[in-house]
């Protein structure tokens, strides 16, 4: 066939899509703004719910894009995006033109910037960290406070930047609950003496084996789950994080001192995605992610013919869903060429 498809974004969705496209015989350019492919998966330690090492997924994806028909362009981003009747012309920052017969947008998500939830004091109080910061600590194999000491009490705050009008996001990021459970278990694994608390509004364990992980967290690891959204954090004279929350099941306010507070940052449309949206005229939804033509049966199609969406640029998804979504994007690309050829 020899058709050329540009895939924008070299994370899970982009790599999976590129690999599948190559398998189907397309010429593929995989454009990634970072110096390395892999996206967020590079930053994770172990994956939920089975807690396999994230490097296994990364290895799988790396193998997927070894085909000769995939040209990987890291450190590259798109500066111009022109649509023509019979294809697209994209220009990278150094003026290189990429002519494409179709484009797959796989620009992924950004983590919510937790400093925007001012009341939690991220970036102000030393031992308020994000789920991503904790993941980095796991990868280093050492969980420590700013003074190098080991925390004895750790709290997790769910829904940071999700389900929150004040943060500008009405939606649920869907994966933070299970991530919090996973990380809570891992804290207990690393620090068996520690006490771990999880402050949630609803435990949204809607994936295969998620609820089981939650149960394990209670049964095996003794994680304390307290139903209430943390209202504020502050710092005591002893450098402890003082939190205020309502224990809604007891119907009373609760005050607690913690050594470390972990903010479960939600998922947002990525900056890269926003840039592409501005260049290309691709539509965004009210949640600011890209808006597929139809959420039920055209979830990979966009308002621009020949441009397809793959992965979390359309909504929060886990890795399984991202990979499936990338594959279905490829099947839509195939349909597209079949229809335009005939």
């Amino acid at each position, binding site marked *: 066939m020899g058709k050329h498809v540009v895939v924008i974004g070299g994370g899970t969705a982009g790599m999976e899509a590129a690999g599948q496209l190559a398998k189907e015989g397309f010429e593929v350019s995989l454009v990634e703004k970072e110096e390395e492919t892999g996206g967020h998966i590079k930053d994770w330690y172990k994956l939920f719910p089975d807690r396999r090492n994230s490097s296994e997924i990364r290895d799988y994806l790396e193998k997927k894009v070894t085909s000769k028909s995939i040209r990987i362009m890291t450190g590259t981003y798109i500066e111009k995006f022109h649509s023509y009747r019979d294809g697209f012309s994209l220009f990278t920052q150094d003026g290189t033109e990429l002519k494409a017969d179709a484009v797959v947008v796989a620009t992924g998500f950004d983590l919510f910037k937790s400093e925007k939830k001012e009341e939690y004091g991220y970036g102000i109080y030393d031992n308020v960290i994000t789920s991503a910061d904790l993941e980095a600590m796991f990868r280093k194999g050492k969980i420590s406070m700013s003074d190098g000491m080991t925390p004895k009490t750790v709290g997790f705050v769910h829904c940071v930047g999700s389900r929150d*009008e*004040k*943060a500008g996001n009405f939606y649920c990021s869907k994966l933070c609950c299970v991530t919090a459970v996973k990380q809570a278990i891992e804290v207990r694994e690393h620090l068996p003496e520690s006490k771990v608390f999880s402050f949630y509004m609803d435990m949204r364990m809607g994936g295969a084996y998620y609820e089981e992980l939650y149960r394990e967290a209670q049964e095996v690891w003794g994680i304390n789950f307290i139903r209430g959204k*943390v209202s504020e954090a502050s710092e005591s004279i002893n450098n402890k994080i003082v939190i205020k929350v309502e224990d809604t099941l007891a119907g*009373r306010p609760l005050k607690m001192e913690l050594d470390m507070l972990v903010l479960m940052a939600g998922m947002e449309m990525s900056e890269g995605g926003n840039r592409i949206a501005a260049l290309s005229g691709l539509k965004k939804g009210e949640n600011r992610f890209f808006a597929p033509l139809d959420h039920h049966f055209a979830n990979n199609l966009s308002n621009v013919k020949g441009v397809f969406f793959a992965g979390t640029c359309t909504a929060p998804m886990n890795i399984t869903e991202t990979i499936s979504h990338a594959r279905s994007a490829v099947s839509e690309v195939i349909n597209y060429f079949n229809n335009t050829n005939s």
Partner: protein
Amino acid sequence: MENYLELLKQDIRFEEGLNACMNCGVCTAICPAAEFYNYDPRKIIDLVQSGDNNEIEKLLKSEEIWYCGECMSCKTRCPRGNAPGLVIMALRGLSQELGFFVESEKGRQQLAVKRTVGQWILDHGYCLYLEGVGTDLHPEQGPVWDWIQDNYREVFHRLGANYQGEGPGILRKIPVEAMEEIRKIFEVTGGNRRYEKIEYYSKKKAEEMNMKLDEGIDNEYFRYIYKTNNGSHTK
């Protein structure tokens, strides 16, 4: 029985203060009243949004709606953009409108607020009236306040006040024409009506409780509502 939810919706503050609540408890977590009273703004919002007319009537007659201090800390934090404090204000307004406020110890205190602050606004144009805030009603003002009140002309004079004087300045006498305008505004906008309702229902309640309620603040019922705390409001 009236539809209380519909009545509440006529209050602009109710419209501003209540979207859909998801019971996260962020308001109760930092609510000063929830800390020191048997009070949970989350539950009140949840009850109101349920629309259960019987339950709302109970609420309008309850102690609970009078615990809030209207600091509005709840509004800062609510992830759904609600303001429980504004909803409370609407509930209190309706409770007084319907005469339900006299059914609770805390609600009955509205007469005390009306006969002090309320009266001072109409008589003097200020929410506070120096000579009305003595250490008899306000012992916590301490010895310095006795000294100030004993020497108020000199103390206020030294600090540049224009006590009861003409023209601008601190605690000046507000001109008669200006006071007339304020009273007219109260008449036109329902301020007087609110005052009259508070008086009317309080007098009925005083009779029912067999207590003497004359004009002003020097009477049995006023002293009772001003001082009584049956101790059931806190833990």
